[in-house]
């Protein structure tokens, strides 16, 4: 019940705003903020009361919704969704603050923002396919409106592209959902779309499960977005208002990765295993491709957008390493990307507000006039290139570690993304912050004001917190991940799984003595010189 309340609280706020006069903007903003903050604090309560030791769903509620179809209003949080849930409320709050200066139709803006928040929260708590789909589609609309109304010059194109792109994917997912619904009905005789039930009872032939997997994959891959489906992202990001970009990068993309963890892996473990190479290569291409393309962007936001493509590639790689390192890394990387990239967008937004341009060539030498801004930007930039001691590193390392267990080559390719990340971020940073302050338009730019500080500061604190003591966050999903891994562990499907006593410490199962020796022998011993 509590969970429901938190989830729909923002929507409540939106309703309140509907009845407020659009004239007194300040009241509207304050109300919105009040609701957002309240929501965030309450969600923190969830976190504090969360039991880390179990992978079971918590704060659950399961009441019948459409009896005729056996569809329930079933919600709950587990380790996989908890942090995403909290991050959603958190970023909503940040966004409300960050959009304080929106002048155009502020009331509609805040309504959309709060409604969006509810939609996203719903996605993370839904434990019924039907309900999940409802929220999944519902949150499109406010986002569409936000991009389309408060966006940049090509906003209409971008918003429609965003909407249709996502809709196509999710509609195919709908078909898959229906198919599963009836399949379950036939096999178990129970008409239900309950995710947990399906997770336990779904048994389909490998071929069928591959098709279903594909259907889900398309929906989520578009959302993530993975390499060939990513082109909506740069447009959406560039056109969206700052807060829009923040939500987009911070939460919406995570819904894709969340989908993989909640559906593809547990529903179709074997299919997932079969598809690992494809996903891995797509992600690797995404990592390198995104980084390379980001390097040559002239628009700051576009650069960050492509960098997200690259980062999300890491997350996908981690998920499909199918081992605890990878998946935990992916989960924490979810959060990290949410924090770092959101911060980057906020920072870009700050200069955009002052100069109404995002072209890198327009800037240069800002470090001289905006020291605070420079420091913040530097910290965030470093975190997004995964400097150890900051949040990015923890996730990236675990992900790479995980994928290394699967295939060293993949790990190597993916790691090269780390180098490229340094290239594009630092090059951009140099061109924007350093060098001489040539452009006269920049001469009188103000440094960050208090409100902007308030939006950035918490993110920076988190950057270091996660970087130095991530256990606070990682212990929440430990149990869930282990449970998940036990389901999808590739050893369950390996054609001939060699199980042998490991005489070489607990890690011989990673490199077996035989493998080791064979590897070892490949090399000719050089003569002692």
């Amino acid at each position, binding site marked *: 019940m509590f969970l429901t309340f938190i989830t729909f609280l923002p929507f409540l706020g939106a309703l309140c705003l509907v009845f407020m006069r659009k004239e007194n903007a300040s009241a509207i903003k304050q109300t919105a903020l009040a609701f957002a903050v309240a929501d965030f604090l309450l969600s923190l309560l969830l976190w504090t009361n969360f039991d880390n030791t179990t992978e079971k769903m918590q704060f659950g509620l399961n009441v019948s*919704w*459409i*009896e*005729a*179809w056996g569809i329930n209003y079933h919600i709950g949080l587990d380790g996989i969704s908890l942090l995403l849930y909290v991050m959603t409320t958190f970023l909503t709050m940040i966004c409300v603050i960050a959009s304080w200066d929106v002048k155009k*139709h502020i009331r*509609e803006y805040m309504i959309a923002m709060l409604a969006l928040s509810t939609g996203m929260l719903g996605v993370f708590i839904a434990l019924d396919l*039907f309900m999940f*789909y*409802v*929220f999944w*589609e*519902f949150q*499109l*609309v406010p986002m*569409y*409106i936000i991009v*389309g*109304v408060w966006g940049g010059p090509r*906003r*209409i194109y971008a*918003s*429609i592209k965003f*909407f*249709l792109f996502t*809709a*196509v994917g999710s*509609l*195919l997912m*709908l*078909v898959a959902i*229906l*198919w599963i*619904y*009836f399949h379950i009905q036939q096999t178990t005789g129970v008409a239900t779309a309950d995710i947990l039930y399906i997770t336990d009872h779904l048994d389909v032939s490998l071929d069928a499960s591959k098709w279903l997997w594909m259907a889900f994959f398309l929906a989520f891959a578009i959302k993530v977005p993975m390499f060939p489906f990513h082109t909506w992202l740069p447009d959406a990001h560039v056109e969206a208002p700052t807060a829009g970009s923040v939500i987009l990068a911070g939460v919406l993309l995570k819904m894709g990765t969340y989908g993989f963890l909640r559906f593809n892996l547990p529903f179709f473990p074997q299919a997932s295993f079969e598809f690992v190479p494809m996903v891995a290569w797509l992600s690797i291409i995404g990592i390198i491709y995104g980084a390379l393309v980001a390097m040559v962007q002239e628009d700051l936001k576009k650069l960050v957008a492509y960098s997200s493509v690259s980062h999300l590639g890491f997350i996908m790689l981690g998920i499909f390493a199918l081992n605890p390192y990878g998946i935990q890394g992916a989960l924490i990387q979810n959060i990290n990307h949410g924090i770092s990239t959101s911060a980057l967008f906020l920072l870009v937004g700050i200069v955009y507000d002052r100069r109404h341009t995002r072209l890198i060539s327009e800037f240069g030498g800002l470090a001289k006039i905006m020291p605070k801004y420079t420091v913040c930007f530097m910290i965030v930039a470093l975190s997004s290139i995964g400097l150890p001691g900051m949040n990015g590193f923890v996730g990236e390392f675990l992900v790479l570690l995980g994928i290394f267990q699967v295939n060293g080559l993949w790990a190597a390719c993916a790691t090269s993304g780390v180098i490229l990340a340094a290239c594009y971020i630092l090059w951009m940073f140099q061109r924007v912050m350093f060098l001489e302050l040539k452009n006269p338009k920049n001469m009188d730019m103000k440094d960050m004001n208090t409100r902007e500080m308030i939006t950035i500061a918490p993110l920076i604190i988190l950057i270091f917190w996660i970087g130095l003591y991530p256990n606070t966050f990682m212990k929440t999903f430990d149990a869930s991940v282990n449970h998940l891994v036990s389901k999808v562990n590739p050893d369950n499907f390996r054609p001939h799984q060699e199980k042998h006593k490991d005489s070489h410490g607990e890690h011989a199962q990673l490199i077996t003595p035989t493998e080791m020796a064979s590897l070892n022998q490949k090399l000719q011993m050089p003569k002692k010189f």
Partner: protein
Amino acid sequence: MEPILAPESIDLIALAPVLVLSIFAMLILVLDLWGGRNKSLLVFTSLVGLLMTAISAFAKYPIPAYSFNDSYVVDHLSLFFICIFTISSALAILLSVEYNEREGIRAGEYYALILFCTVGMILLASSTDMIMIFLGIEIVSICLYVLAGIRRNDHRSNEAALKYFLLGAFATGFLLYGMTLVYGSTGSTNLFKIAEFVKNPSAQSNPLLMMGLVLLVIGFGFKVASVPFHMWAPDVYQGAPTPVTAFMAVGPKAAAFAAFFRVFADTFPEMSSSWEMLLSIIAVLSMFVGNLGAIMQTNIKRMLAFSSISHAGYILMAVIAKNSLGSSSLLFYMLSYAFMTFGVFGIVIILGRKGEENLEIKNYSGLAYKHPVIALSMTIFLLSLGGLPPFAGFVAKFYLFSAAIQEGLLTLVIIAVLNSAISFYYYLKVVVFMYMKEPEAEFKISLTPITLFVVFIGVVGTINLGIFPNSIITLASH
């Protein structure tokens, strides 16, 4: 030769709704003589009539009950449809009131015609005999011919009436011919007898019968405006007075689908192998042509016409599915479709000006910031038509697709979902204009209470069916 109509086989109670409604219709004609210029009395009477009809529909119990040698049936399907009809007719009448004021339509028979049309629909939905079906269709059509042309001095209205009339009659020819052939090859006009007859395989391969089926498909296909028999729809929808358009898009269509379902899914299930293909082709064509046609439209009525064509395409899937889920999803779809459509057209009327003006989509620019509530409800209707949760349209589509999936029509469903993706484009186009463009001219919109009330009902229905569909689904799935 046994007597065709044995007196005991006539069951007037079963026939109650038809009788009640006819009586009220005539009553209106009479009242109109003395009523003078004030039409509100007529409106009131017709509404009462519809209410009475709805009530009297439940007079017969237990159901299913048959009458006129099993040529008329009262069962769940027909009952539910009667409810849909009464609701839609009532909404249509409510929509008309102020519209007629504005357009200066003084004709009192307008309401009578709607009621008569409703009678026809009821017959159509509850008849199990081809003769009855024919009569029903004709009653409906003839009323609609007149209604379409009721704005006598308007060229477009006339033209719509003419086109509808000629093509309608033309299609009727095909329908009749089909019925004849079926009759000739089965020896009966009664659907039950026919069903019995076609049970034995030898009859199924009779070319006359098959030919007849094809012709029937054309006849019904025309009535539900499915491709390639849809050509009349855009023109007529555009030309006819807006309330009539809304009415046409819902009531008659629903009735035709009811008959369609009875004839094909109930009567010829054994022969599905032969007609499934036809209907699938028609369905797919309707979806594509409807959606593609709608994309380029600039006039909102015309766009909605095309969208209704595509919806016909979706609904055909229910007929193809021909299972219990199919029928119930048909019911649910039609009901939610009624709410959405009347809502949309209500708003079209609100924004329209005298003489069917101001119907271009670009006239909606910036509506959201002049009249947020109107714009919001419009958005809700459009998204619901597109099939976006949490609105009625989504649940309906979900229901429909699940029926099809249960029947294993996977490809059809996939095509359907891709089409609804396309449809989002033009539904969103309107939203784009309302929210993302600046107003072109000053809005002079007629916020008339009754029309607003209809819109309100539409919103409530759409959202309610979207979020709490359970009760209706339980009713529909009997």
